């Protein structure tokens, strides 16, 4: 018995680092919780990496779920690609890929494929980029951020934690240069309630920003997704589905909705 998403990560990277495990399975890797039923990866943005992933997934009988094609033309615009398969026990496996995770710079993404701990270890996203990826519109991600931040040195934890008690504990020693409002509230001698309120406002702002970003993708993909459904892409073998979904995307899915305004 093993974590099949860890195994799949190793298989995807068997010919060179192309897929960095992220999101819920990264939280499992960092031993914070047994969290996610799905696998999420940050993919190297090359045609070769896309071909490698499609070949591995096809071997296991994976099918496309409604989403963008696994193709750099759309991945470069921040789109995500989604697949589903079953393991030998009939358990549902979902695999999601992006090459431009939100709130992670291109330089940071490039560095993910050359981890300092060496090529032998499982390729997993670092704690700080993972935290920033989790600053989503989902309320449930923010307690996870608080636990992840505990893995950081204190001067970084105070900049990223969502735990008001940790901010209060760390602000005086490590928050001197922080521009973060909850940290400033703690340093200014505010009450715990002041810190909680500042933190809640910050969280709400992050949620609203992410929601606005996702809303652009939703508007841009509405017609496309219905065309993908109508074409019954999920019923096709992966090679056939990939060819067909690219055809549909070329017609209906803008490469980068954030540039074109959706």
């Amino acid at each position, binding site marked *: 018995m093993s974590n099949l998403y860890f195994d799949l990560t190793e298989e995807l990277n068997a010919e060179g680092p192309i897929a960095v495990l992220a999101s819920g399975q990264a939280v499992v890797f960092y031993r914070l919780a047994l969290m996610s*039923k799905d696998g999420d990866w940050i993919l190297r943005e090359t045609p070769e990496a896309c071909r490698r992933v499609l070949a591995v997934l096809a071997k296991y009988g994976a099918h496309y779920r409604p989403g963008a094609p696994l193709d750099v033309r759309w991945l470069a615009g921040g789109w*995500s690609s989604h697949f589903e398969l079953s393991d030998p026990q009939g358990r549902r496996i979902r695999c999601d890929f992006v090459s431009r995770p939100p709130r992670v710079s291109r330089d940071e993404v490039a560095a993910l494929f050359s981890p300092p701990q060496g090529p032998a270890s499982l390729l997993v996203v670092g704690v700080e980029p993972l935290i920033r990826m989790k600053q989503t519109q989902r309320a449930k991600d923010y307690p996870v951020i608080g636990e992840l931040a505990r893995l950081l040195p204190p001067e970084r934890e105070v900049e990223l934690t969502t735990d008001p008690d940790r901010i209060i504990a760390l602000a005086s020693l490590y928050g001197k240069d922080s521009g973060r409002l909850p940290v400033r509230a703690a340093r200014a001698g505010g009450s715990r309630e002041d810190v909680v309120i500042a933190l809640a406002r910050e969280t709400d702002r992050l949620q609203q920003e992410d929601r606005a970003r996702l809303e652009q993708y939703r508007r841009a*993909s509405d017609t496309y*997704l*219905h065309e993908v*459904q109508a074409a019954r892409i999920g019923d096709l073998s992966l090679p056939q589905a990939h060819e067909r979904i690219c055809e549909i995307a070329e017609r209906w899915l803008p490469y980068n909705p954030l540039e074109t305004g959706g």
Partner: protein
Amino acid sequence: MELLSEDDLNLKDMTWEELDKAWDLWFDLAQATNDFDPPYTHGVFVLCNLEPRKDDGNLERLIAEDRVVPARLDLTELGPPPEQPRDMTISEALAAQREER
């Protein structure tokens, strides 16, 4: 909000083999909620709401593939669960395994 349960708090003390087994067991149990999972948990389609296709035909396909078994019982007649002794938590099970070694 408490994120970590008693079992979660013990994850750091597990070996990689124990963590794999614990996750595999959790993944098994989590399959029970597949039908209730949101269509997307990550990516840029999380706000998209795909309406089910009218001519989906999935149930017919599953029946044709012999992957659907007709219901034998009626859940509304099931009644309350029987009294069971307290199940061992994952942490207790792993601790017991360590003692056996």
